[in-house]
Every structure is written in structure tokens, then in C-alpha cells.
């Protein structure tokens, strides 16, 4: 079996090398686009976002007791507590999507039941540190925050609805005892661990501080226009203009840098903080170092770095590979198809985005470059959020596993609710912030 697979890969490469029209400008251009996107990520998002987030993910898995959270999802836990904890548990539990499904199965079979399990499955993959910060940084703070808040709020709702729909169906629960990781003795008071995490998260908040990208452009003919810069290259800018009423136009215009004389950011609180963000982030970094020196043992620090390295090995090749492939594919897809399917903010666009997101498998975090590419090709903000919500929660492979765990009717209900809720949230977001 394995040899057949290897042969398939070799044969595929051979076919590609033999038949692909490499001289076709569309194809070569799209491959260049892949490298350009990769560079954009390397320059703008790696050092300030991906790398610190890896360290935080490593710290979460090393210093926070995951078992203590799972205890709130046990069979005897209070209903409301279980729903609330399940909706936010993804923050500290799941960085790798492959660990989400066993926990879903565990909560359903041995723990608090179908409702909390569904809530966990919906929000878990969307609210880990990396996903939240990378979304906010790449797609804009509004989408990043909407993704986290939407995932948590609607996880709660989906959980409750699942419980109500199936409250009479007797689930065949396992009679086995939940096996918990042995509780580890606290190595320092909680406030010290808490402060350490707060400082690390603030470091990330500041280093990723939102650039509004609202600017006043002074053109060569002296005209000044207000615009939002969507994508800046060395020789060109993609901008959206503000109209006289201060509303952002939907159309993205590509400007030649040579035609623009000056770019001045519009002042405001957000931009003031943006101006000094490196000092703030640096201060947080020093605070973290000081705490490590005073409060943590050498052994703990070694474990932490080890966990960070493991995450890096697991996630970075996937992420950057995904970015490159996304760039290439983005160069190949004609814009009008994307805009036609998921442009604007109609219920239809949001539904298509949710549905595709539910079926499609996104490797860890690659949903973010993909959504970014799609918005550049004309996807609306609402559908972008729909895709971000439904995308990581489910995929065809994970639907099959869920089906094995809970059976056909519950799987269909969960998929239906996921698509419906994601469509609704995307539509609301698009109507208010689009």
C-alpha cells in the first residue's frame, strides 16, 4: 500500500513535469504570486506574530494544567458551567486540530454529554492563540475579534440547541471512568503563572497592534483622497476609497506607486499606540525574561522551549506550505468567479462560504492565508467570517469521524447548525462592519 502511494506521488510529479505549460504566462505568474505571498508572510507576519505565538502555545501546554479544565466537563459537572467551559476550552486545549476529535468523543461519551461536546467542537479549533492572533493580524482586527467572539458565543448556542434537539435520545454512554492526567502540584502561586501569561499575550497584542491602514493619499496632481490600503507592494498599492460620507467603497483599485506623492496615516488612538508598539512589546518581553529568571526553574524553561519547538515543527511547514500553495492557486483563479460566488454580503454568499468551509479540510491555520487570498479576489467580509467559523470546525474527514462517534442524525444536525449559525454570524458581521 505504501509503495503504491509513493508510486502515485512520483507518477503525479512526472505527469506535471511532462505536461504543465510552464511558459504559459498565467501559470508562471501564479507561481511567482506564490513566492510573493510567501515573502509577504515572512516579512510581515512571522517574527511579530507566528514566532511569539509558538512560544505562548508551548507555554500553555507546559504550564497550564489541561486536566483541570477537563474536570469541568465531566459527567457530574453543572450544566451551565459545562457549556461555558466547553465554549472557551479551545483556548488552552487545542492547538493541533487532531486532538479536538478525541476530546469531543470523550466529552460526549464519558463527560458532560452531547451539548457541551458540540460546543467544544465548534469553537475549539478557532480560538487557540495562534488562530486568533494570526487572523487579527492578517485579516484585520475586526475580523480576528469577530472570529473569536463569534466562535465562543455561537458554540454556546449550538451546544444548547443540540442538547434540546436530542434531549430524549438516550446516548449510549460508556461506563468507563474518565482517565485524567494526574494533577501536578502547583510549582508557584497562580498569580505568578497568570502574570507571566498576561505579559506574553500583551507582547503579542502590542507587536501585532492593528494598523488601521486608513491613509490620506496625496496624488501627483495634488489631489488628496482618503483611502484604506488593502495590500502594499514595492511598486503598487491596492486601495479602497472612502466616499464623501466616510463609507468604505467596495471596489479595490490598484495604484502605481509612481502616481502617489505622499501617504499620511490618519491619526487616532489606534495609530498612536501603533507608533510606539515596539517599545511596549519590548517592555513586555523584558518582563517575561525577568519572570523566567526569578520564578522558573531551568528544567521548566527547558520543557517550555521543547514544547515550543514541537509546535514549530508541526505547524510552520504546514503554514508556509499552505501560504505558497494559496498564492499559486490565487493566481490561477479568475477574480470574477470568487466575487460571483462569495462577493458582497448576501445570504447566498455567506451560505456558500459556510458550506464550502464545512466540507473543506484546512490544515492547521491555513484557513487564514486562504481567506486572505479570497478577500483579495473579491470575497466579502461577511462570507470571510462565515468561512473562518465553519472552516476549521468541520471538514469532510472530521465529519466522518464525528459520524462514527455520534451517528447519522446528530452529525447531520450538527453540520446543519454549524452552517446555519456561521451563515448568520457572517451575514450580521457583513451588514454591520462590511
Amino acid at each position, binding site marked *: 500500500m505504501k509503495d503504491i502511494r509513493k508510486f502515485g506521488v512520483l507518477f503525479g510529479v512526472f505527469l506535471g513535469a511532462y505536461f504543465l505549460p510552464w511558459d504559459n504566462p498565467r501559470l508562471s505568474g501564479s507561481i511567482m504570486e506564490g513566492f510573493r505571498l510567501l515573502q509577504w508572510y515572512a516579512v510581515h507576519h512571522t517574527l511579530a506574530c507566528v514566532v511569539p505565538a509558538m512560544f505562548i502555545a508551548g507555554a500553555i501546554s507546559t504550564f497550564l494544567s*489541561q*486536566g483541570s479544565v*477537563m474536570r469541568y466537563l465531566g459527567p457530574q459537572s453543572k450544566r451551565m458551567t459545562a457549556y461555558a467551559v466547553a465554549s472557551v476550552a479551545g483556548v488552552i486545549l487545542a492547538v*493541533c486540530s*487532531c*486532538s479536538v*476529535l*478525541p*476530546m469531543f*468523543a*470523550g*466529552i460526549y*461519551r*464519558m*463527560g458532560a454529554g452531547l451539548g457541551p461536546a458540540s460546543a467544544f467542537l465548534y469553537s475549539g479549533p478557532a480560538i487557540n492563540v495562534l488562530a486568533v492572533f494570526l487572523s487579527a493580524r492578517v485579516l484585520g482586527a475586526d475580523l480576528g475579534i469577530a472570529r473569536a467572539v463569534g466562535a465562543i458565543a455561537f458554540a454556546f448556542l449550538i451546544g444548547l440547541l443540540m442538547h434540546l434537539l436530542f434531549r430524549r435520545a438516550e446516548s449510549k454512554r*460508556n461506563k*468507563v*471512568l*474518565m*482517565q*485524567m*492526567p494526574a494533577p501536578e502540584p502547583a510549582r508557584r502561586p497562580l498569580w505568578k503563572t497568570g502574570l507571566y501569561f498576561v505579559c506574553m499575550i500583551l507582547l503579542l497584542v502590542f507587536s501585532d497592534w492593528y494598523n488601521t491602514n486608513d491613509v490620506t493619499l496625496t496624488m501627483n496632481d495634488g489631489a488628496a483622497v482618503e483611502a484604506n490600503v488593502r495590500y502594499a507592494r514595492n511598486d503598487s498599492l491596492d486601495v479602497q476609497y472612502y466616499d464623501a460620507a466616510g463609507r468604505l467603497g467596495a471596489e479595490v483599485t490598484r495604484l502605481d506607486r509612481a502616481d502617489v506623492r505622499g501617504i499620511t496615516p490618519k491619526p487616532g488612538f489606534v495609530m498612536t499606540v501603533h507608533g510606539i508598539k515596539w517599545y511596549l512589546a519590548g517592555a513586555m518581553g523584558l518582563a517575561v525574561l525577568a519572570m523566567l529568571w526569578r520564578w522558573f526553574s531551568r528544567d521548566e524553561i527547558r520543557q517550555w522551549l521543547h514544547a515550543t519547538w*514541537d509546535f514549530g*515543527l*508541526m505547524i510552520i511547514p504546514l503554514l508556509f506550505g499552505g501560504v505558497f500553495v494559496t498564492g499559486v492557486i490565487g493566481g490561477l483563479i479568475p477574480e470574477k468567479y470568487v466575487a460571483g460566488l462569495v462577493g458582497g454580503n448576501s445570504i447566498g454568499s455567506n451560505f456558500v462560504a459556510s458550506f464550502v468551509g464545512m466540507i473543506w479540510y484546512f490544515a492547521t491555520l491555513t484557513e487564514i492565508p486562504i481567506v486572505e487570498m479570497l478577500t483579495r479576489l473579491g470575497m466579502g467580509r461577511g462570507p470571510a467570517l462565515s468561512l473562518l467559523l465553519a472552516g476549521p470546525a468541520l471538514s469532510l474527514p472530521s465529519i466522518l*469521524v464525528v459520524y*462514527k*462517534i455520534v451517528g447519522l442524525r446528530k452529525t447531520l444536525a450538527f453540520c446543519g447548525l454549524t452552517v446555519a449559525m456561521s451563515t448568520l454570524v457572517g451575514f450580521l458581521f457583513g451588514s454591520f462592519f462590511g
Partner: protein
Amino acid sequence: MRKLQVLGTGCPKCAKLAANAESAAKALGIEYELVKVTDINEIMTFGVMMTPALAIDGEVKAVGKVPDAETIKGMLA
């Protein structure tokens, strides 16, 4: 004959745990059988919800983490 079961759906951590368990058993020079349990319903029958997990002779010894070979040696002793 000891029975080592690595529970997990096939993520990199599970592979690492399997490797650690194998090297621990080899270092002790015991006869062993290493089984990877990847079916999620079967994992549930162990009561494990945080993967990877290690069971020795049917008894769950580690949950949700990857103990190193030294620690596993201690569990086998």
C-alpha cells in the same frame, strides 16, 4: 510478554510516544508487543479523551502527554 498500547489518532505526538515506548522496552530488554490504537471508539473504551495516551498491559499510565523513555522505563519496571 508486556503489551504496550499507544492511543492516538495519528498525530506527530503519538508517533513520538510510540518511539519512546519502544526504546524504553528495548533498553529493558523485555519481550513486548506494541500496538497503535487509532480507532476513536476504541480509544474511548480506555476512558482516554486526551491523546496521546499510553496503556501498559491494558492499564492507562499516561494521558495527554508524551513521557520520555526514562519515565516509561519506570512504568514498565
